[in-house]
């Protein structure tokens, strides 16, 4: 994996990410926009699924906020790849970065499991939210916030 990171850092993408005046700062902005959309979408949906804002209908929120969160991820991943390419060999050995990636995998697995376990129950969520689903939603929000926090922490650790 470390050899792969060294190769990515030396690749044209890595050279461009470091060398261009705009590549890094613009990738940073897009990464931040994606984060805002992810937490703004999934985070608010998670709060509702966990039990907050009970006047808001769960199915409608799911329909509109989930795509926003997914769009956020679609921005986050390629922008993150550019930021990663600039410093890949140092990042790949950074404990904070490794935790961040591990928690991203966990958060995505949690989201996948959520669909499998609870998607069919959404219609009845407003009257009868299952405890397991509420806990997983709270876990989802916590995980994404931790991921965001660790991402910011990389530069200071």
């Amino acid at each position, binding site marked *: 994996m470390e050899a792969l990171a060294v190769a990515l850092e030396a690749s044209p993408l890595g050279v461009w990410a470091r060398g261009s005046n705009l590549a890094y700062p613009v990738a940073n902005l897009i990464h931040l926009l994606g984060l805002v959309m992810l937490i703004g979408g999934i985070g608010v949906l998670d709060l509702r699924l966990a039990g907050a804002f009970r006047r808001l209908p769960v199915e409608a929120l799911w329909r509109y906020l989930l795509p926003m969160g997914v769009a956020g991820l679609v921005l986050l991943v390629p922008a993150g790849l550019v930021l990663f390419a600039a410093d890949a060999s140092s990042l790949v050995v950074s404990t*904070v970065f490794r*935790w961040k990636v591990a928690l991203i995998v966990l958060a995505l697995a949690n989201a996948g499991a959520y669909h499998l376990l609870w998607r069919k129950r959404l219609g009845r969520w407003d009257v009868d939210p299952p405890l397991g689903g509420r806990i997983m939603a709270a876990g989802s929000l916590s995980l994404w916030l931790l991921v965001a926090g660790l991402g910011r922490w990389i*530069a*200071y*650790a």
Partner: protein
Amino acid sequence: MTLHKSLASAIALAVLIPGAALAHHGWSSYDAEKTLTVTGPLIDVAWRNPHGEAKIKHAGKTWDVILAPVARMEARGLTEAMITNGKPVKLEGYPRKDGVAEMRIERVTVDGKTVELR
């Protein structure tokens, strides 16, 4: 592993692994009460984002020199051609609070021109 431990090991890793250029950013890790002024030739200049880097010899050690983002340096009038390897410069900046030989640069004087990097 707790977050606290993982952060501590991240710091340890960054210090131990040569070339791990991540253990900085932000002004809070640097001691602004202790201005360092170092004059000498620059070594290993990297004109890059998220910030330029170089090394310089000072007080028997080789210091890591943390510059600014490329676009900011150019906007302030410092170009890649002005700080090539071996170029004598005057650096004013702050050392890290934890004693690591690394300084964050407040201003650079090169070719008789002073450029503010903050």
